[in-house]
């Protein structure tokens, strides 16, 4: 195995990203979908920090990651509130069953 470098981190982040998307599109449970989103955000964060580290871009990347984490928290809060709301109205949180609005 070669020396761990930037690409290794990128591979991890890409894998996380892909798994995140996969989770979002396949899991029926809305909460699981939210987990997928978190995965995506994490993958981007890895990118930021890895790039900053290996490209010597300074701390910008880390600050970015910090912001993303905060945003992720906010988003999760709102999203969960919405999911709870859905649960109240539909009595289910299975995303694929919530399709009254369609053509």
């Amino acid at each position: 195995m070669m020396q761990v470098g930037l690409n290794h981190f990128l591979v991890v982040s890409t894998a996380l990203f892909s798994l995140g998307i996969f989770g979002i599109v396949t899991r029926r449970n809305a909460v699981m979908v939210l987990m997928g989103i978190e995965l995506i955000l994490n993958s981007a964060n890895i990118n930021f920090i890895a790039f900053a580290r290996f490209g010597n871009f300074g701390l910008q990347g880390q600050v970015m990651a910090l912001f993303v984490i905060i945003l992720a928290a906010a988003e999760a809060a709102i999203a969960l509130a919405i999911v709870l709301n859905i649960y109240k109205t539909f009595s289910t949180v299975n995303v694929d069953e919530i399709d009254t609005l369609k053509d």
Partner: protein
Amino acid sequence: MNIYDIVFYLFAAITVLSAFFVVTTRNIVYSAYYLLFTFFGVAGIYVLLGADFIAMVQLIVYVGGILILILFGVMLTNKITSVEIKTGSVQVVPAAVGVALLAGILMASMVDTKWRSVETAMPSATTQGIGMLLIQQYAIVFELLGILLLIALIGAASMARK
């Protein structure tokens, strides 16, 4: 193959594998716990990348905040009494094809690209630097995030109150 590498592979494996389980396990609660491991793995990677502060934040916010939130979500949207909280998957095949294609493209281009890469020493403490950036260059973003959190608070409350 030094320690750094081994640790990296360890964390990478934890991260990716648990992420894989997150999106495949039928039991939601298990999923949530796998997510914990993923976050943990990511935090480890942050450490490997010299982002000590971010790693901490990752643990605190994600594990301490978001994950708990998600668990609450799981609990509130399912009947607690049922032992097995399971959920199915939909459209696995098209999703797998699509995601595989996308992942392939991403991987290929990520690996193929000649990134700007400079050999630098592992930065020491980053907290101060981040702090400076937050109140200088990124002051506006920082402030904005404050308002954003307020809005998120109000929004979530409003939603929940409904």
